[in-house]
Every structure is written in structure tokens, then in C-alpha cells.
């Protein structure tokens, strides 16, 4: 069934995240999933906006949900922040009647209505549950068994699991399972499931740096070919933030490419690196891309 896609603010607008949109589109097209962009999508008002005013944030997010509902589609998003916001709207509307009334009233003033019937889905969960590892394996054309990566699940795709209902966040495996269909070696390591500090960027920059430093030390010790993220903020922290950490903490040998999850899948489906925006990242992806392109076909 056709899905309404919410791309979020950052994915279609930031140089290093354009590849997230491009590769998501390629992967979904390759798997025969039909999509429509949410018309004139606006900010989903994620956690930082909830911090300023929860009511406003929920009403803002409900605007995009109302559009998806009017099209009769469930909502799919590659951004964990967006996913979390939309799940939050449904949860609050179900559990707090007074807040539901308030959101209704605000939306009425802009001639919108959201009944609460849209199921928000995260791209990676959708690929795992609705498409499945088997189908991915059948469609794989490029062998990725030569590369090892450090996968980051991030926070807002999984936590808290009562709200998001994908998998218990302490030891998740579903996203690894999909990469394994292409032969990728997804390495287990300390700090794999810990926060990257992304939401403190611009507010408590020193803390954001120190947390990111811990994450980069953790993954760098594994000698992986790169990091793979499923969240816009994780990518911005690890990719755009890496040079700063290198300087601030004197990590001279730090040079880790950071791939978006569907970029790796699209490479496994045989797409060319230049179609996937891999040259737009802050950290050079040349080495991991060369290693992948030098690997065999299957």
C-alpha cells in the first residue's frame, strides 16, 4: 500500500543528508514501494520544540499527520526525530482526552482535522517487518561481505519501547539482520546503543562534544570501515561533528566515513555511489566505497 513520506526538516535540506533522501527513494523504488511526499510538509516539532511547548509541538506534528490521513495513507519517515514526534501525537491523543480536545481546537482554527488513524512508521522498521530480510536478500546484486561497520540504532527510533513499539532498545538486532543479508559484518561494541548527544548541539555544545567523543572512541577501537546511522541527528553528529572532535581531543587517526543506512542497502542493490550522494558527506567515503565497488557480484 502506498505510503505518505515525511522527510523532515534536515534530510532534504542539508548537504550531507541529501544522500539519505536519495538512497531512501532508490531503495523503496527498487522494492516496489509506492510513496507520495506529504504536501507542503512543515517541521514535525521534535523533542527540542516539545521542550518549549508541548501543546504547540503536538499540534504542529498533527498538521502533517492530518495531511497523511486525508490521503488515506500511513506515514513513513527515515528520520527518527520525526518518527518519535508522530508516535507521540497518537499516544497523547489516545491517553489524554483534554489534550486531544485542545489539539482538535487548534487544528480547527486552520481548517484541519486529525482523527488519529495514521500509523507512523520508521523506514528501517518498515523494511524489516513489511518487506523482510528474505526479499532483501533476493534483490541483492552486490556482495558486501568484505566490509565491517559499526551500526548505530540511535535513540529516537527505539526508546522508549512502550511508545515506539519496535523492539526493546537495549539489545536490538533487526537492523543488523537486514545488513547481514548483503554479507555486511555489523560489529558489536560498547556504546553501540548509547546517545550521541545530538540534541544538546547548539544548547550545551561542550557536553555534546564529550558524548560524541565517547561514541567515536568506542567505534574507532573496532577498526571498522565505517559507521552506519538511521537518524538525521546521529549522522550530523558523527559526520559533521567528527573533525571538531578530532581537533578538540587530539584523535589524529580518526577518519571514519558515516553512511546512511539505506545508502548501504542501495549499494547492495547495485546502485552507483554517485546516485546516492556519498560524495556530499563531510567525512570522505572514498575508501569504504572503493572497497565495496572492488568486491564481487553475487
Amino acid at each position, binding site marked *: 500500500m502506498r505510503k505518505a513520506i515525511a522527510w523532515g*526538516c*534536515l534530510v*532534504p*535540506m*542539508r*548537504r550531507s543528508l*541529501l*544522500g539519505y*533522501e*536519495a538512497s531512501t*527513494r532508490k531503495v523503496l523504488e527498487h522494492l516496489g514501494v509506492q510513496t507520495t*511526499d506529504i*504536501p*507542503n*510538509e*512543515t*517541521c514535525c*516539532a521534535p*523533542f*527540542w*520544540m516539545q*521542550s*518549549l*511547548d*508541548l*501543546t*504547540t509541538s503536538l*499540534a*504542529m506534528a498533527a*498538521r502533517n499527520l492530518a495531511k497523511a490521513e486525508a490521503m488515506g495513507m500511513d506515514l513513513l519517515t527515515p528520520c527518527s526525530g520525526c518518527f518519535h514526534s508522530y508516535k507521540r501525537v497518537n499516544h*497523547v491523543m489516545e491517553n*489524554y482526552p483534554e*489534550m486531544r480536545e*485542545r489539539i482538535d481546537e*487548534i487544528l480547527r*482554527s*486552520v481548517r*484541519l482535522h486529525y482523527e488519529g488513524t495514521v500509523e507512523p512508521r520508521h523506514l528501517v522498521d518498515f523494511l524489516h517487518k513489511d518487506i523482510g530480510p528474505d526479499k532483501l536478500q533476493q534483490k541483492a546484486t552486490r556482495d558486501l561481505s568484505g566490509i565491517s561497520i559499526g551500526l548505530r540504532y540511535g*535513540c*529516537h527510533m527505539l*526508546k*522508549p*519501547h512502550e511508545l515506539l513499539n519496535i523492539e526493546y*532498545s*537495549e539489545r536490538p538486532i533487526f537492523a543488523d539482520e537486514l545488513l547481514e543479508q548483503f554479507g555486511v559484518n555489523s560489529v558489536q561494541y560498547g556504546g553501540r546503543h*548509547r*546517545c550521541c*548527544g545530538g*540534541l*544538546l548541539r*547548539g*544548547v*550545551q555544545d561542550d*557536553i555534546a562534544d*564529550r*558524548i560524541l567523543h*565517547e561514541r567515536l572512541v568506542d567505534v574507532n577501537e573496532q577498526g571498522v570501515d565505517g559507521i552506519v546511522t538511521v537518524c538525521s541527528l546521529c549522522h550530523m553528529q558523527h559526520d559533521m561533528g567528527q573533525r571538531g572532535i578530532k581537533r578538540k581531543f587530539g584523535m589524529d587517526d580518526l577518519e571514519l566515513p558515516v553512511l546512511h543506512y539505506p545508502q548501504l542497502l542501495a549499494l547492495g542493490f547495485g546502485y552507483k555511489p554517485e*546516485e546516492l*550522494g556519498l560524495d*556530499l558527506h563531510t567525512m570522505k567515503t572514498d575508501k569504504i566505497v572503493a572497497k565495496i565497488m572492488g568486491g564481487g557480484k553475487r
Partner: protein
Amino acid sequence: MEQTDKRGYRGDFPVTDDDVDATFKKEIASLVGGEGLLRCLKCGACSGGCPVGSVIDYRPRKVLGNVLLGLKDEVLSSDQIWMCAACFTCEERCVQQVNFTDVVTVLRNIASREGNAAPGYIKMAEMVRKNGRVSARTGQVDRMREELGLPPLQDPDIETLQRIMTQAGLDAVIAANTKEEKSE
């Protein structure tokens, strides 16, 4: 150096009756997301998993303790509620379903209305109000999208968004925080 500012350094000062507002915890517990507060056993599972606590001296349990004790002014005007990275690990691990992250949201909402929001988040909110997204559109991004074969960027429905922000109360929050800045 002698520490003269009480905010955020509670350990250095004894609490007196003047510092305590006994109704504070009930006020927080009555708001959306705050209801878990009164279930807190102060076990510290939240502090144990906190990524901020692993790099600086920050303990969610201490914040919860301050709220339960009723240190209203101190909690609402200090940095301690703005240091949470919202990773939800504490919420995931809390056996009492206190939902610290949600309690922090309630506290931040009250602080924001009083003009004590984190300036960085206010700047981002102003950006969203103006552009409909948290980033501004540039010709460079448009060109890169075209080269990558992506469809042209849609214009966000700014008019609707701004009306929602006014109607729901965010404009008032932004005003409360920008006024403060000017008077300083």
C-alpha cells in the same frame, strides 16, 4: 573559588524552609507527562544509564529529588533541566515508570513560559517560524538536489504553521524569552 550562586550547586548549601514549595511536585504531577513523578523511589537507575552523567557531574535522580523536595525556583531557573539529551534511556530502564524525560519536558515548558528557555532552542524555534523548517533554503541545496536527481524542494505551508504556533502558545513562549534577552 567560592561558589555564591546556589543554582545547580545545591550540595554546597543547606535547604531552608524558604527554598521549599511543597505543592510543586503536585503541580508537576498534574500535567501531561508529569504523572510518573510521584512514583519515584530515588533508586538511581536513571543516573546509572545517563550519557550526560558519564561525561559531567549530572544526575537525573538529583533533579527528581530537587523537584520532589519542592525546590521550585532553583529547578526552574537553573541549567539542570536543560542538560538532558533526551535519549530516553532512563525512561526505558525506570522500574517505576517515572519517565524522567517527560517530567523534564513538563519542567522545561514551565521554565520556558517564565522566560528561562535554552536560548539555542528559542533560536531554532524562530527559524522554524520563519522558514517552516529548522534550516533555511539555499540556492546551493536546490542545485545539489537537482544534480542528484531529487525532486524540487516543496515550499512548506508556513501560513498554517504560524497560525498553529500563535494559537497553541509558542509565540508567547518566544516573546517571553526574547524580551528577557533585550532587558539584560
